[in-house]
């Protein structure tokens, strides 16, 4: 093949096999896992609606949206960490630590602090704790699951050992007001108030911000890059420390916000709250189409995953499931949904 190597071949190289018509819709689906999530949501809604038609009313929607808020904020944080190839289980501990400390501090020294300031304070302190996570992950070169198990114990231990254990009802007035603030309020025919709380705006804002960061900034692309392969991204000139710190700081930032939103909407500050539901959040993100192995996941899919998990947790009474059977149903549902997902992946 000596001389022949030099012969010019001008025909274009067929780079990829032609997508075959028969499999193209499968391919289309495989690219959009969130379609599945959406289908499951529709299915669950139809089933519950058939069992109990009172499911189809606006207030139920409001309730579900409200129940999504904190879970959704956590899920966005988990999404960005998963996309970067890590896993974070300390976010709830961060939220608990920031929400309780800030509420306590504000109550004692500055009870009239405006809610905007509180949100900023929560976000900033959450982000700082997240930075610590990020730096530890970077310095220790250990899987982030292990590091964040460590920091989870640490943050929760600090909260309950040094900050306080007793919950209090008299949260600062601005928080209370924020929790009660309604975007939309009307009365149902039965005379019940139905309220769409303003706190969902925080989730909406966070979702838009996360989407913009992931898709429209270099740091967002860097997140997916290191999620694809840490070693390769490093070789291509990405600064791993920056990305690690950013990712965990952002997750901490959202956790801090979630903490303040949680206190505002429950109107009590309980240091035992939030922690313990980490795996549900991760499940929601995975049901939203992100892969546990990193490098994938979308904001839209994640929100759908959150809606799905919230939905299944909030319609069991409406569907008439006795309380002893509820865990079985939720567990079975996660398995079925997971199996659907797996089938999609194999398709």
């Amino acid at each position: 093949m000596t001389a022949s190597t030099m012969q010019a071949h001008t025909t274009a190289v067929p780079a990829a096999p032609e997508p075959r018509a028969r499999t193209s819709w499968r391919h289309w689906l495989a690219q959009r896992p969130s379609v599945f999530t959406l289908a499951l949501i529709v299915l669950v809604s139809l089933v519950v609606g058939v069992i109990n038609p009172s499911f189809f009313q606006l207030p139920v929607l409001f309730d579900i949206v409200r129940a999504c808020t904190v879970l959704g904020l956590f899920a966005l944080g988990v999404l960005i960490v998963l996309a970067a190839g890590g896993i974070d289980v300390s976010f709830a501990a961060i939220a608990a630590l920031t929400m309780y400390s800030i509420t306590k501090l504000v109550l004692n020294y500055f009870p009239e602090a405006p809610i905007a300031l509180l949100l900023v304070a929560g976000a900033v302190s959450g982000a700082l704790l997240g930075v610590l996570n990020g730096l530890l992950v970077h310095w220790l070169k250990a899987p982030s699951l292990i590091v964040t198990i460590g920091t989870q114990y640490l943050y929760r231990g600090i909260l309950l050992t040094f900050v306080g254990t007793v919950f209090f009802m008299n949260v600062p007035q601005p928080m209370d007001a924020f929790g009660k603030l309604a975007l939309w309020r009307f009365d149902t025919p039965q005379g019940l108030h139905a309220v769409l709380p303003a706190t969902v705006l925080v989730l909406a804002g966070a979702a838009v911000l996360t989407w913009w960061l992931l898709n429209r900034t270099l740091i967002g692309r860097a997140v997916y890059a290191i999620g694809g392969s840490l070693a390769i991204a490093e070789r291509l000139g990405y600064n791993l420390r920056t990305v690690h710190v950013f990712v965990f700081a952002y997750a901490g930032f959202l956790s801090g916000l979630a903490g303040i939103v949680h206190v505002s909407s429950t109107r009590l500050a309980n240091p035992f709250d939030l922690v313990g539901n980490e795996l549900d959040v991760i499940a929601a993100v995975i049901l939203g189409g992100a892969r546990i192995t990193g490098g994938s996941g979308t904001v839209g899919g994640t929100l759908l995953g959150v809606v799905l998990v919230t939905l299944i947790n909030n319609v069991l009474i409406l569907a008439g499931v006795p309380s002893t059977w509820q865990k079985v149903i939720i567990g079975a549902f996660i398995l079925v949904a997971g199996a659907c997902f797996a089938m999609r992946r194999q398709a």
Partner: protein
Amino acid sequence: MTLGALSTPVPHFPAAPAGRRVFLEVQDVHKRFAGVHALRGIDLTIETGEIYHLLGENGCGKSTLIKIISGAQPPSQGRIVIDGTPHDALSPLEALTLGIETVYQDLSLLPNMNVAENVALSEQLVKTGGKLARRFDRKAVAATAVRALKTLKLPTDAAFLARRVDELPIATRQLVAIARAVATRARMVIMDEPTTSLTQKEVDNLVHVVEALCAQGVAVLFVSHKLDECMAMGGQAIVFRDGTKVAQGPIKDFTKAGLSHWMTGKQLDGARLRHRSHEGDTLLKVEALGRGTQFSDAGFTLHKGEILGITGLLDSGRNELAMALAGVQAADRGRISLASKEITLKTPADGIRQGIGYVPEDRLSEGLFLDKPIRDNIVTAVLSRLRGRFGALDARQCQALAERTVANLQIATPDVDRPVQSLSGGNQQRVLIGRWLAIDPRVLILHGPTVGVDVGSKDTIYRIVQRLAEQGLGVILVSDDLQELLQNCDRILLMRKGRIARDFDATGLAESELYRALVSDTPFPALP
């Protein structure tokens, strides 16, 4: 021209023509890994607009030098001077900023990102000086990507730009990696074995690209084990042996044999190794085998002691056929019979049970357990046969088998407890072959057995293959290295569009004929 201060005499060649400028100098660079002195005082000068071929056996330090120049690893000692500015070490970003673009041996593509981003994201990164708090300019990325892909004659439509890289065939991936290197205004492009998985046509195209780059004054550092390609391209040859530079000069002044001599210290030639042994009984008979749309109607026979080559362009179905024969991807129609008995191959375990061994193409991801001991890597497929009392593994038998394999296949290692990743590429490949020999195979399928393996190691592997055939094994050699096929095989099957298009007798077949048949687009008459 810098010549290494070496004990080995370095041949002296006339200086490069004027008009070229020194771009980069490597000065007395050493690299030590735990226990390995990989580079021992390398001095090099790279000038603009010239092609350099970095040649040498596996493990002589080529990739290591490249990693040091491109900033992926710091040198242990020495420095790199770029445009007159000395650097003790470069970071990947600094190297990119200075215009050094690299196609790594492992491609270094981000599997989860799309083609456009893989090709053009680095440009933005460099533009912002590595700062990530910047907007991501999708239009610029698309524009750059289209420009680069065009150069390599890759598709530029939106659908291709949006394809995830891990969905692409390996050859396309390699081209995408090259596209990334030429996407920006590079001053030096380094390519570490860029042609390993390319077909001839694609290699030819790459050669044009390299020539065009040189014409624009870009320096190209090219690493390949395929000496013919290098000779065809021209430029400077730099030969490494054991971490030192042993020769440098215009490649046209070397002969292939001469280069091999510099690389290995031994004389090697491309002569045919196969002296057709007389045909044994029919061992494997394949009839009307097919799988989906990947290949169909495959039929052939393999005799005892025969070496059968299978080749074809990348999506010709040759890989899929090989995998079906090993049970890795089961065929969905047709028959396979072994020694006149029909067999089913649904999983690799079926293959093992029947005595069919399969050495996969990509030894790193499909073959080896990198951080496990050499021993475990060898005994993998026969664990159940090495059971002693209580179903436990018989440690002594394992050890003996591993040591026997190491001795048999001349694997260079002091002991079998070491992780297999501590071996060089060629030795790793031998471990893999050893694993399959342990099952006492009747048929051995070797898929690209010398990809990324140097001349010396190649030779050892060929001799092993020949020896096996003489012992009565049926060997199937799937490869796109035509010379390898011609040197080793009795017959060569050529696949095209999922079908076996031709069946060549390898004796007396000229490489040029085989090559023409391979790249020709005209349909062959159907086989009788």
